[in-house]
């Protein structure tokens, strides 16, 4: 047994250390400090471009920070370690406290202290009623308190009262709800997914048939991109309204949708999709995140064949929607890969919904398509589409230009319906403008649980901060020989068991009710220490 003792002591000390408030405090601090780099440094999850720019700006520091997980703080192991430790410490503290609270709920209020004058709140008076009557009156006054009557050996009657048990209940609810919140959050990130897709607002459709339908897809760990709840949306049109200053006022997309049940019947339902007004379907929510323009180019090839390209260009200035992009064409009727590599076309450059030319330089004056124009380069040659490298929908493959396989054959500004002619007789016409919307689809199976626990956190917090646990004692004893017969000395004591703030007023009220209801006037409070409005 002697050998075991240090082990037991070590375990006990570890347990105490882990569950002590000081440890919890330090871990809370670490959580706050650890979260800060997540707000101050660019994060992969929020803005990968800013991260790579940070890498360019700080070539020495960035790799170190990257290695330490500072660009994905909230997915890093050290951040997880902090909050897991915190929650372990929380559980270890909560379990014994719950047991203790259950015991307290069954316990009777403690016996009246011998010397009530030593309590923070104290009164003493002589009344005409008998001790039993005085205690009965106090019982009536203290309705809602937990009470216990006792008779002391000296014959004095006492009443112990305690109230405010809801404080600890609120405390426990608060902390358990925090645990529930974390678990629900984790379930959401495991089984949820988020995907973005750009859809042209010309009757084009988006169907949630799998990860491949998205431009970018962020699945939870347990989501493989198949088995998504199927639904389709059709974007009929999109409208934006602006103030004359260019400040946007409203974005609204007129859409139809088919939920899972409608897919068989082919039934479409109309909906107005707007910012702050997502479409909520059975298994997923659809959001309107952004919008932009897809300039339409019609290319007439030398043999008279026409091809029309409508590809979304991305806004480079959100205020004026000046956009950039690349619209790519294969020559019609060419199947030979070698020939194809000679004659592919790309139109790349800038699009302005309301053109403002400074000399030859195109910029945009307003986000609405009032006077659309493009400033384009036309490139001919090998686009590199079959090179096996990943291709951006918004850019041409720069390496093809560098290697000379893709060459610029024209550069010109075009207003709507203007055209340019290439040396080989090909005609490129800026033939129209289509809007696109970017949609986000989100699925989180646990978010109602998160809300429930968040509300419990709030409710528990409210209880634990507003309810005061306090005790009240009365001792009524027959007055001494120098008083007339039948008089009773009443002593009152009060003690707030938790953070003070305000028990004094309540104590004063109760004391006044108990002591002035009798026919005789109460004695003055015993000394200055009698009733300060402060307690512990």
């Amino acid at each position, binding site marked *: 047994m002697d050998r075991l003792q240090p082990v037991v002591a070590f375990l006990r000390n570890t347990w105490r250390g882990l569950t002590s*408030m*000081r440890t*919890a*405090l330090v871990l*809370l*601090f670490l*959580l*706050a400090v650890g*979260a*800060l780099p*997540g*707000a*101050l440094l660019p*994060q992969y*999850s*929020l*803005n990968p471009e*800013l991260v790579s720019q940070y890498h360019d700006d700080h070539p020495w520091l960035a790799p170190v920070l990257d290695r330490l997980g500072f660009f994905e*703080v*909230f997915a890093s192991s050290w951040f997880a370690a902090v909050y897991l430790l915190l929650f372990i410490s929380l559980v270890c503290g909560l379990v014994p406290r719950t047991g203790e609270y259950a015991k307290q709920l069954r316990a009777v209020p403690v016996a009246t202290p011998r010397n009530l004058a030593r309590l923070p709140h104290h009164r003493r008076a002589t009344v005409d009623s008998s001790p039993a009557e005085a205690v009965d009156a106090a019982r009536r006054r203290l309705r809602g308190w937990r009470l216990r009557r006792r008779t002391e050996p000296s014959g004095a009657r006492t009443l112990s009262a305690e109230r405010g048990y809801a404080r600890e209940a609120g405390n426990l609810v608060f902390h358990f709800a925090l645990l529930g919140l974390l678990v629900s*959050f984790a379930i959401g990130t495991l089984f949820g997914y*988020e995907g973005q897709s750009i859809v042209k607002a010309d009757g084009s459709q988006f169907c949630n048939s799998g990860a491949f339908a998205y431009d970018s897809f962020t699945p939870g760990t347990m989501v493989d991109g198949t088995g998504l709840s199927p639904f389709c949306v059709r974007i009929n049109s999109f409208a934006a309204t602006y*103030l004359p*200053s260019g*400040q*946007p*006022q*409203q*974005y609204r997309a007129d859409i139809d949708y088919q939920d899972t049940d409608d897919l068989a019947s082919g039934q479409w339902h109309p909906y107005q999709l*707007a*910012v*702050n*007004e*997502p479409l909520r379907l059975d298994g997923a*929510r659809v*959001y309107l*995140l952004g919008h932009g323009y897809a300039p339409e180019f019609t290319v007439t090839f030398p043999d008279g064949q026409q091809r029309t390209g409508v590809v979304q260009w991305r806004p480079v200035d959100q205020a004026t929607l000046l956009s950039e992009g690349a619209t790519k064409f294969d020559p019609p009727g060419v199947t030979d890969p070698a020939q194809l590599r000679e004659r592919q076309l790309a139109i790349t450059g800038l699009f302005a919904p309301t053109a403002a030319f400074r000399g030859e330089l195109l910029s945009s004056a307003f986000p609405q398509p009032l006077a659309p124009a493009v400033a384009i380069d036309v490139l001919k040659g090998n686009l590199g589409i079959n090179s096996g490298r990943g291709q951006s929908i918004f850019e041409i493959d720069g390496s093809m230009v560098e290697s000379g396989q893709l060459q610029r054959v024209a550069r010109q500004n075009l207003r709507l319906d203007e055209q340019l002619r290439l040396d080989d007789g090909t005609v490129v016409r800026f033939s129209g403008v289509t809007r696109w919307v970017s949609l*986000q689809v*989100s699925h*989180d199976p646990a*978010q109602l649980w*998160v*809300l429930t626990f*968040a*509300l419990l*956190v*709030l409710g528990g*917090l*409210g209880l634990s*901060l507003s309810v005061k646990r306090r005790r009240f004692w009365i001792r009524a004893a027959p007055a001494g020989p120098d008083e007339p017969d039948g008089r009773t000395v009443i002593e009152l004591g009060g003690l707030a068991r938790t*953070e*003070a*703030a305000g028990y004094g007023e309540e104590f004063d009220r109760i004391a006044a009710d108990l002591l002035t209801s009798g026919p005789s006037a109460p004695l003055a409070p015993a000394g*200055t220490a009698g009733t*300060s*409005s*402060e307690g*512990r």
Partner: protein
Amino acid sequence: MPVDPVLAFYGDAAFYTALVLYLVAMVLQTVEYAAQRSAEPVAAAVGGGDGVGGGVATLAPPAGERAARSRSERTGRVAVSLTVLAAAVHAASLVLRGLAAGRVPWGNMYEFTSAICLVAVVAWLVVLVRQREAAPALRRLGGFVLLPVVVLLFLAGTVLYAEAAPLIPALNSYWIAIHVFAVSVASGVLLVAGVSSALYLVRLRAEASGGEGGSPGSRFAARLPGSALLDRLAYRTTVVAFPIWTFGVITGAIWAEAAWGRYWGWDPKETVALVAWVVYACYLHARATAGWRGARAAWINLLGFAVMVFNLFFINIVVAGLHSYAGV
């Protein structure tokens, strides 16, 4: 709904009027603070056995003194009256702004900062009314509450100023009335808490050194109310504000779910709001932990306030995030 330029003009005029009135009130309070004799010598407060009991009870002035108010007291009373007037004009400026733009008057950084300041001043006046017995001692602190208010309002009226305009689509939701209101109220009340904790630390240091020596620092501290009162003021304001802040963060998450497709995305503003929440949670826990009450807890409260200010300015203006709207 079009903006009413006349109402917007009067709204701005009221804003600058309120700013000037606050400034005058602050100067008057400073005069009062400098002119008064030490109401509660540091050494006396230290002597009190339980320390906590001091505060309220000992600070009520004897009834006789009321008849002959000193000049400094009269100055202080004028300053409080001016503060009330300024708060009324300030409230009018927000109401006019709201009417002019046909929406809640906290739709951009200028209005939001202004709303926070109004809440802080109103919270301060409520403290004065509710703590009537301690009011004479507390009243002198008005200048310290008005100082950050004046600084914030000055920044709001210059750097952050924005013309009255309708809301941008991302903000156009009934949640702006709930979420931003809750956050403004919590921030304003926490400002009062932060000021109290700062003054508490100053006073505590003076009490620890026994109030000896006539250094400017100790003369300054001697005019502050007892540390127990300051500590309790900080605690009670924080206890009021913390659940409101929690509510603000939760409603923010609910709004984010409707607007951005997820209730929590570690956007910088969300993250720092959580950090502030955790710091204030630390404060409340510290108050219940042996060895952490008093100065350490007060430092944590100050840290919490620093995080709030950081979140208000640095995150919105310097760090690009979803909460950065229309330039600011």
